[in-house]
Structure formats: C-alpha cells, structure tokens
C-alpha cells in the first residue's frame, strides 16, 4: 500500500525559519534510511502559507484568498510517500523519524493511506454482479478524469 506521512507545520516553519544544520543532517540520515529500505517513493517540503494561496468555493463559486493562514498546526509542512505492506509498517517508520521540528519540540506526523483501486472494488462487493462491474467502470472513469485533470 502507498501511504503519505504528512508533517504538520508549526509557527517556525510558517515564519520561514530554516531548520538548523543539525536537524537537516538528522533528517537527511533518516531519508537515506527510508531509501535504503526501498520504501521511499517521494518526499517534499512545502514553503510557508505566506507564499501560497487558497481557492475557496462558496456555494460552488471560487474565490481566491492569499496566505498566510493562521491555524499552523493544521497546515501541511512536508510529506513522505512510502510504499509499505501495512499501515502498521508506515507507523513504525514514522516512529523512527527524528522529531520533525527538532529535538524536544512538539510536532505531528499524520499517516494517511492512499485509495487504491482495490478499495473501490472492496466497497462494491455488496452490489449485485451486474451493478458491480458497471460501478467499477464508473470508478475507472472517475479515476481517469481525475488523473487527466492532474496532467
């Protein structure tokens, strides 16, 4: 399964404070460990929300709101995408991570598995056989539309 491990932002990352050299090297070592275990697919760090924006939809109509945003503990600061056998394996990897905002600081890593085609198929088991394949087709179509939107 593919899992995203999301590091939440804090006041410092939102203020654009760069991590210390020591933090960077500890994190680099951890990233290397993920790579050496063959589980790391992708990773990235996000700039503070002051450099970003939100497109809000109220009653379906988009409006643009510029950053920064205040609820820093709910914001995403960075992520890893790992390929693992189970949610527990992702949790074990997250436990092995250095505290994301430096030693002795509060931080949070949220662990979120991706939807896979099997999940849709599993959810459709209750449907009748005819409806089943039809619904899977619809899911495939939706997946197609979504990924075409990403191009």
């Amino acid at each position, binding site marked *: 399964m593919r899992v995203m491990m999301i590091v939440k932002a804090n006041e410092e990352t939102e203020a654009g404070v760069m991590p210390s050299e020591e933090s960077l090297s500890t994190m680099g070592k951890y990233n290397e460990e993920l*790579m*050496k*275990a*063959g*589980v790391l*697919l*992708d990773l990235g760090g996000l700039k503070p929300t002051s450099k970003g924006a939100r497109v809000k939809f109220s009653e379906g109509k988009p409006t643009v709101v510029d950053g920064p945003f205040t609820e820093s503990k709910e914001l995403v600061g960075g992520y890893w*995408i790992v*390929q*693992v*056998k*189970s949610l*527990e*394996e992702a*949790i*074990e*990897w997250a436990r*092995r991570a250095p505290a994301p905002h430096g030693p002795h600081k509060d931080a949070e890593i949220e662990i979120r598995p991706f939807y896979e*085609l099997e999940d849709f198929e599993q959810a459709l088991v209750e449907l009748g056989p005819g409806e089943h*394949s039809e619904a*899977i*087709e619809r899911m*495939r179509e939706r*997946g*197609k539309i979504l*990924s*075409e939107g*990403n191009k």
Partner: protein
Amino acid sequence: MAEPTPDIHRTIDAVWRIESPKLIASLARMVRDVGLAEDLAQDALVVALERWPAEGIPDNPGAWLMTAAKRRGIDLLRRETLLERKHEELGRDVTARQEQAVSDLDRALDDDVGDDLLRLIFTACHPVLSREARLALTLRMLGGLTTDEIARAFLVPEATLAQRIVRAKRTLAEARVPFEIPRGEDRAARLSSVLEVIYLIFNEGYTATAGDDWMRPALCEEALRLGRVLAELAPQELEVHGLVALMEIQASRLKARTGASGEPILLLDQNRALWDQLLIRRGLAALAKAEKPGGGSGPYTLQAAIAACHARARTPDQTDWARIASLYAELARVSPSPVVELNRAVAVAMASGPAAGLALVEALASEPSLKDYHLLPSVRGDLLAKLGRNSEARAEFERAASLARNARERELLLGRARACARD
C-alpha cells in the same frame, strides 16, 4: 485499540519487516552461516511474540531482537558443541562485554550494515541453489515474508515451501558458500543471478493470471523494493538501475492492464490516464542513471529504454517506433532470442511499414523454439492483413487460435480470422 492483541501482532509484523533483513545480515556475519542466522532471527521473533504483547514494544526493537537472537545463539551453541569455533567467537563477543552488550548492539545496528545486506543478497541468490530456492530464500530473508505468504504467492503448499527453504539453507551450508560480496570475474555472473531472481519475483506477480489476488501485486511491490534496496547498496552497478527502471515503468501500468472483468488489455489499448505517473517519473530517473557513460547496453537497461519510449508517449500514435526498433536490434545483439526478434519485427513494422516487419517475421518461420508460440502466427496474420493478403492472414489467425492457451485470446484470434474472410 479496543482489541490490543491483533494490533500488536500487526505491529510486530511491521517491526519484523523493517528489522529482519538487517538482523539476519548482521547475525550471518557473526556466525558465518546464513541458515543459522535466519533460524536465530526467527527464534528472536518467537520470543518477541511471546513478550511484547504483555511488555509493550521496546524503544529500539531492532537492538532488542538482536540481543535476543544472540542469547539464543549462545544457548544453542553451548548445547551443540559441534560448532566450537563459532561458539568461541560468539561467546567472546557477548560474555566478555555483557553489560555493555545492549549499547554495543545499538551501535552495531546503527552502523552501516549495507555490506552485510549485500552479502546476504548475494548468498540468497547463489547459483549453487535452484531457481525456486533462490526466490524463496530471498523473499524470506530479505523481504521479511512469512513462509505462508511466499507459499500463497507461488501457489504451492506451505509445507512444500518450508521444505524448500530448509533444503536451501542446508545446501548453502554443505557447499560452504562464503558470506561475502563476490569480487573480480565472479562478480558479474553473481550479480546477474541476483538481478534474475529479483526480476523473476517481479514477473511472478506481473504476468501470472492465476493465484491469490492479494499476493500477486505484493510480489511486484516486493521485487521493486528489493531492486531499490540493491540500487542503494550497489549504486555503481549501472544495470541494477536498469532493472529498477524496467520494473518501475512496468509497474506504472498495473492498473491499466486489466479490464473490469479481469481481461488483459494490451499496451496500445490501455487507458494511459491510469498509468502511475509517480512510478514513471521514478523509472525515467533510474533509467537516466543506468544510461550514464559506461552503461546503457545491458539487457535490463535496454528493455527499460523500450518501456520508457511507451511511457513518454502521451498517445499510442506518438510512440517513437524507430527508436524502439533500434533498441530491439541492440537487445537482440546483447541477448539474442527469437522472442526479442519477433518484438523487433513488430517495432519495425510500426516504424517502416508492414512489409519491412513481415520480412523479419518470415525469417523466424523455421525457428524451432517458436513452433508452438501463438504470437508468431498472430503477428504474421496481423501484418499480412495490413498488406491486404487476407486469405493468408486468415490462415495465420486460425493457426494462432489453435495454439493459444487462453480461451479469451482464442476467441479474439478467431474473430480476426472471420474478419479477414469477410473483407
């Protein structure tokens, strides 16, 4: 968290998957016997399964398992004095420094165990073992898969698989296979055995249509993971990156290659929007490493380069068939096979027209190894039909249908035969 027991077993399974390859590799260096090392590691797992549900998961589970395995090793060797020399090595190692053993072990595990892991991979894929034994041992020792999981993946009874692993370990011990990274002339051959094992695991998952639905994709993922591990351990081996690139790109199509009722969908008919762009990106990056100066000419890298031509094409008609044809020509040179030649014929037909492709196919007509291969008449029929030679095409499709093993495929070929008759 209402039922702690199943949760903790899944957690232990996860810890095992993360820690066991390093654990077995470090133990194997100490006892110089991969089979014994794996037994010791398994024994440590049994102790963990007994104690962790009650005591909780230790802070450093890897070090904990290592200590348990070493204790078990000392017990075992004391009882069975036949391995006296090893006994001394282990005994010195632990009893003389028992107090600081745990902290030493922490450090030992933090140390780069990369070389030990690489030794372990080379040993599990040693040519003294049968192909099946290499696959089973690699999945067991490097993938952290259970005997049951491996048995389900290969569709054999668990007892058969367990026996296979026991025999493989015995073979390694009897042949006195040294726990080392091969050097010199030996290295290339040994490395190609490792690459072969990883790609076989991948193909077990990728090409099989029967079997446990859950374990099949797991085999692809496992092979990919092993490939990525190997690329980190031996980055200077360019062909390793080639294999990784090939697997990443092939795996990117997993969701697109079967239809709603499980029927296979051919590459050119696939919905490319379902291709996994993250894996394609990783595959292309690995291919770039493989094609560095001095590389690019190995069979895996060439196949990856062909796969990359398809991955880069947004639509089938954007495919660079001329490049694919020249890559197949290169592949036919480094690793000649009639199947490669047939693929080259298809690429040439796409690049330069059906007549050019047909000339290459005709040259394969008397190839004994393709005598019962349905794709030969199928390709020939396709090219003849494109050239308007319908009655010849029809005969080829009918012959292909008689050779096809899969009912759906046979139906498809007979349909094409009927279409030739109509025109």
